[in-house]
């Protein structure tokens, strides 16, 4: 991975030095060893700080909306899920393809620091190196090697697209897909099997934890409205105060509904939720329904295929026509 990282750095430097792009969106080190933060690079010199490692989980696509609108030509690194997000933003007219240089990065899956912490591998670590599926935790007392899959984010374990679905150039060899697609609906299926009462209690407990920090919304590549309806006092549904649990239900249902057919299932909403609400389950429920009822559609795969809620078929399933009377056919 370090070898690829060097190539990544080199490519960014060249892009800025030759004026191929005005800005490069990439990652740099945050405060801690497990902390990687998105960063904007404006000059070739700055790119020494640029990095690519097992913690580059942050999706950079959404940052493009502002920069592209101001007329900058931007270079951006995309992993598999980021590329889906990129396409979704493209479909929503939030960015323009011409102003973006896409550097594709096949992704081996990102490491979840929380999992390392839970496994008590956390203490004393200064840096983490990676070769294939082996993580080398380097600390005060030397190096310790662990198997990477055990510490990857859950969402990475059911990743369908480790390789970008769209890019201008690919900077590494493609990665194999880890698990079959069906696995990602396991939890949804479990919840569906519960009684109405159990389901409600489960979700009420989850939604009650919500502090309305809006992290889920801000990270989401499908949530890209100029002004969210929940921030708009005129809309009649705006509410920030956690006055009553019903408002959290409203917020989260509508949030999930607004990304229906547009969610690329990157799982970022759940990852960033400080309260640990499994928001991605709502999204996946919708994805599952759409696939079951309206056929295979994957948001972000092809921006030219109309989204399920932006189209219809005359012979769509009709769960409401219990009477089968009247009307055409």
């Amino acid at each position, binding site marked *: 991975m370090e070898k690829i990282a060097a190539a990544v750095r080199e490519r960014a430097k060249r892009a800025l030095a030759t004026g191929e792009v005005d800005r490069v969106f990439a990652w740099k080190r945050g405060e801690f060893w497990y902390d990687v933060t998105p960063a904007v690079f404006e000059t070739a010199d700055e790119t020494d700080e640029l990095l690519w490692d097992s913690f580059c989980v942050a999706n950079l696509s959404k940052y493009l909306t502002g920069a592209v*609108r*101001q*007329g900058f030509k931007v270079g951006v690194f995309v992993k598999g899920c980021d590329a889906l997000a990129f396409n979704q933003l493209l*479909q*929503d*007219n*939030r960015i323009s393809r011409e102003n973006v240089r896409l550097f594709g990065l096949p992704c081996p899956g990102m490491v979840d620091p929380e999992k390392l912490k839970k496994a008590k591998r956390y203490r004393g670590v200064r840096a983490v190196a990676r070769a294939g599926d082996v993580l080398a935790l380097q600390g005060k007392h030397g190096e310790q090697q662990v198997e990477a899959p055990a510490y990857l984010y859950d969402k990475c374990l059911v990743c369908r697209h480790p390789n970008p679905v769209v890019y201008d150039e690919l900077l590494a060899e493609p990665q194999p897909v880890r698990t079959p697609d069906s696995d990602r609906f396991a939890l949804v299926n479990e919840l569906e099997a519960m009684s109405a009462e159990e389901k409600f209690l489960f979700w009420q407990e989850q939604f009650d934890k919500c502090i309305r920090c809006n992290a889920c919304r801000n990270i989401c590549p499908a949530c*890209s*409205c*100029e*002004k*969210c*309806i929940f921030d*708009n006092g*005129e*809309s*009649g*549904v705006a509410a920030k105060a956690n006055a009553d649990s019903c408002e959290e239900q409203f917020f989260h249902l509508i949030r999930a509904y*607004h990304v229906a057919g547009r969610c690329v299932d990157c799982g970022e909403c759940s990852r960033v939720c400080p309260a640990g609400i499994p928001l991605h389950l709502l999204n996946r429920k919708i994805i599952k329904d759409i696939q079951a009822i309206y056929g295979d559609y994957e948001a972000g795969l092809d921006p030219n295929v*109309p*989204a399920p*809620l*932006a*189209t219809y078929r005359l012979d769509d399933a009709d769960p409401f026509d219990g009477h089968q009377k009247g009307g*055409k*056919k």
Partner: protein
Amino acid sequence: MQRIGVFVCWCGSNIAGTVDVAQVAQSAAAMPGVVYAKDYQYMCSEVGQNMIKQAIAEHGLTRVVVASCSPRMHESTFRKTAAAAGLNPYLVEVANIREHCAWIHKDKAEGTKKAIALTRAAVAKATLNAPLVAGESGVEKRALVIGGGIAGLQTALDIADAGYAVDIVEKSPSIGGKMAQIDKTFPTLDCSACILTPKMVDAATHENITLYTYSEVESVSGFVGNFEVAIRQKARSVDAKKCSGCGLCAEKCPSRKAKSEFDEGLRTRGAIYIPFPQAIPNVPVIDRDECTYFKTGKCGLCSKICPASAVSFEQADEVITQRYGAIVVATGFDMIELDKFGEYQYGQHPDVITSLEFERLTNAAGPTGGKFVRPSDHKKPKKVVFVQCVGSRDTSGRGKPYCSKICCMYTAKHAMLIRDKYPDVEASVFYIDVRTPGKNFDEFQRRAVEEYGVQYIKGMVGKIFPEQDKLMVHGVDALSGETVVIDADLVVLASATKAKDDAEALGRMLSISTDTHDFFTEAHPKLRPVESHTAGIFLAGACQGPKDIPETVSQAGAAAAKAIGLLSKKKLVTNPCVTTVNEALCSGCLACEKICPYGAIAAKTIELTNNGVKETRVVAAVNEALCQGCGGCTVACRAGAIDLKGFTNRQIMAEVDAICF
């Protein structure tokens, strides 16, 4: 704060019988914003309306709520009342306490409670009502008629005579349609060509009519009064301006394999051909699929012999774009295929023909020159059997479940004509029911039986076996309960009518609906029979359902009258309840554009300064003249940037809140 007046109507005892109207008025008076509340026996009466006008003036009302019958009944009445008193008509709301309350509940306490809730919802909505001004749009003084059969011709002539320009688009190389193929017309037996040809000539020479033959409508956009239509004029490969119509090319064309469409395939035609002698325009067309020159690059005989050098192999399709105020659809009908009716031997035996083929066979200008002979051996038949309802009234899926309407009459006509000309020929008709409602229709059919001795047999034909040069027709006489067999020489099948195969596609292009059988649906089966659901688009003839010629012509006249009524208007008032975009909220994702059935939403680029930085942004823009106000886009818009006037998100939510009060 609004100053709202609430007016509760008794509707005599219709409402007052189950709703305590006084209590509704009393409760309304206490609702937020209400400064005046009153009940009266008949709010829609002159006295009632004056009461509203007076209250608007005296109490300075800014909103009016009328709790009365359905808004479908009197909303426009009360809007006019408010307008007369100087209030914007869209500041009026109606609470439906009759159809939705008084008439369905028996218990007075319950009814009163519900009436109060409905009134509260109307008050809550009215509070948020905004004054709306209906827009205006002009009317393009030109009509388009799609289809050049008798329906289209009659419509076009009527509109043109009223002084408006009309374009006729006809798919085939000549106008005339099905009627041109017919020999005689029932119930008067006048010659079809004799009454149609003058109309064709009239249309061709009328100063207000332009013909586009061998042309098809390619796209339609716009709205009532302002349609924009692209017409594809297919390449004739003959320059109509140079051609004198001498017909030499058609005569000399060496390719003779193509079947004549006009003669129902009973004879062949050249690759370059004039469909029939009276064709208008009298200009040949090259069937490029059949032409040796187009297939191999060799031949070109027509071009060489044309005295006017009118043949042009290079001619290309031309697309003409034109604006129209009204469109009349008159695309006509077809006959069903009979491949599912193997028992009748159609297609297997040349002497089993359809009624339309029979028309050509007996026509003086037809393939036999009017000589009544059968196709197989050109001998004169002795016995002719007619079978009605071949595929009509058939729910089994082989045919069509509806009655084709015209077959009883034309079969009687055919049988009668045979018996009249050739008294030695026997004619029998198998029928299920004889349906002859129409002026002089039943008399006509009875004459066939009583004067001309046509054998009518109630029953169907089960199978036909060819035996030597005869066709053994096995059937049943259901009335006598006998099985029958007739050794016929010719069998004529009255196949069912059907909508044109491309009717649904055209319907989609025009955004007008079709029924289960692809006939165009009228706006109301009784009261608006010639209008489609889309304003400005009218229907004439058999494209709306099976019809005979008199009916077609009267519907064509009616459609023309509707079109003239529209074209004569200076301005059209548009619906003010349209959507608007709040550009500050719009992200330009154009989810709204994708679901708009009217193409009323388009992208627009705006420039703005965001925190001192200049940005360009794409936003949605609504064409108010196109928007019909369904509001589907408002739901597609996640940010609520697009909203529907008269039914805003806030208004509907206020109603929900008031109902759940």
